């Protein structure tokens, strides 16, 4: 019974963690421009992230090490400094784009230009982390995140052609404009595989004192939870394909996207869209900020813990105080949030190999995983993920120049 409860909570968490500015932006753009055609890349990204999250949780449960701890220990500082720096830079842009998402949701409702919201939102993010415990952060973002189910409701109301949707899961050549199609496919995968999630998830598992007994919970959370988060992202894509595409609205700016729900659900749809984007991005910003603090503290061996009073882990608290402010400055600079989001997703893809390759090596290390090392399936998926990540990171930059 306790396990069921744990899984339920974990699933809620992953909804909060999965759906963020990147997933919403890329899914709606994919739907608006290419119909159901890019569903396969969402599905592929989901498959990868399910396996990766499961690995991060298993590592934490068995070895009592977070991903960051284990990486530095196993590969040494001289190697670890690369993924560390890469991740911190990417996280800055990811948090900036999440803050941008929240700001835009506020702009939709109030009409006040998004950049003026950047610092108030950063303050709110900080306040949330500052005063909440880990389970508070986890549970509240999760429960609020349930509002995103509105996209699934919209899909049901739209009565889409489910055969056509099914066909979208088979990769196909684009009808036009191949570079932007592939660039979008790359961005979707980058949006779905958020590396900060791995650091966050494994730190949470250590903070919650997971043991080998929790391995089943871990499996359940990663499969059902990530699957559920992905379902919502797919719903966003389907709704966009059913509303924006036939209306001829390409999604060039975030401002065009709320129409996709108002066209289906009227005024409620408009407000629920704003709420969904605002809450999902807020949750993601909180998790990413916290994840940066975890990563830094664990890299240098500082005391860390979201459950400790901030005074007891001052350096850890300092990181999650400073980072959202820096990110808010990026948002405030006035870069179009959609461009910022797509840019940070592409950047994520570029650094994926350097994060994932060591992860797969780690998962095969007896010292950490004892008898719970990766099986052939996990390793096969892991190798595929790494190879795809390398290919993607090589093509992402030229694609951005041509198609983005």
């Amino acid at each position: 019974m306790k396990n069921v409860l744990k899984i339920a909570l974990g699933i809620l968490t992953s909804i909060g963690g999965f759906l963020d500015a990147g997933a919403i932006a890329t899914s709606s753009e994919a739907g608006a421009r290419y119909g159901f055609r890019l569903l396969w890349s969402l599905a592929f990204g989901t498959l990868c992230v399910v396996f990766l999250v499961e690995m991060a949780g298993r590592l934490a449960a068995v070895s009592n090490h977070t991903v960051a701890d284990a990486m530095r220990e196993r590969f040494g500082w001289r190697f670890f400094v690369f993924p560390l720096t890469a991740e911190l830079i990417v996280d800055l842009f990811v948090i900036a784009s999440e803050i941008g998402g929240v700001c835009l949701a506020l702009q939709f409702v109030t009409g006040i230009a998004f950049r003026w919201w950047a610092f108030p939102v950063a303050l709110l993010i900080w306040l949330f982390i500052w005063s909440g415990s880990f389970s508070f952060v986890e549970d509240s973002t999760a429960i609020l995140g349930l509002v995103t189910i509105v996209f699934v409701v919209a899909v049901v109301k739209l009565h889409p052609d489910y055969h056509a949707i099914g066909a979208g899961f088979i990769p196909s050549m684009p009808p036009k404009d191949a570079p932007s199609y592939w660039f979008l496919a790359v961005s979707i995968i980058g949006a779905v595989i958020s590396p900060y999630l791995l650091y966050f998830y494994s730190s949470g598992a250590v903070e919650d004192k997971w043991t080998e007994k929790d391995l089943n919970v871990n499996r359940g959370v990663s499969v059902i939870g990530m699957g559920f988060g992905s379902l919502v992202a797919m719903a966003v894509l389907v709704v966009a394909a059913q509303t924006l595409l036939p209306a001829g609205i390409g999604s060039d700016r975030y401002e065009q996207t709320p129409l996709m729900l108002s066209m289906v659900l009227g005024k409620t749809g408009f407000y629920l869209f704003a709420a969904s984007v605002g809450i999902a991005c807020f949750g993601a910003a909180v998790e990413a900020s916290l994840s940066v603090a975890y990563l830094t503290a664990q890299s240098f061996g500082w005391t860390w813990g979201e459950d400790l009073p901030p005074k007891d882990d001052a350096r850890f608290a300092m990181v999650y105080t400073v980072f959202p402010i820096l990110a808010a400055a990026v948002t405030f600079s006035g870069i179009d949030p959609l461009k910022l989001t797509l840019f940070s997703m592409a950047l994520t893809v570029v650094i994926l190999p350097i994060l994932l390759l060591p992860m797969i090596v780690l998962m095969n290390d007896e010292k950490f995983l004892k008898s719970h090392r990766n099986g052939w399936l996990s390793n096969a998926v892991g190798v595929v993920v790494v190879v795809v990540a390398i290919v993607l990171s090589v093509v992402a930059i030229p694609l951005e120049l041509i198609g983005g």
Partner: protein
Amino acid sequence: MIVNLELLLGRKVLDVNGEKAGRVFDVRCEQQGKEAIVREWVLAAGSHRTRSVSDVVQFLLLQLRARTETAKVRVVPWDKLDLRDPRNPRLTCRIDELPAE
């Protein structure tokens, strides 16, 4: 004289004839009471320095192999490595004089 292990790791090691013996990969010690005594230096054929992308990949491959039986490591007894110049460690014997592992 003090040698920093973290700086020694990855250094190229030559034998008396100037032939490449590998790179410093690890140090085996024995804990005796409150003291830890170095017994053997472990050399590996790959690179432990990570400077470029290809180094990173090579390094990861080495890490993968290092835990398996096929890892190509050379074990050097503590007195067979001359560390007076820690940047250029040298064997005091020929490679083929090293005891087989």
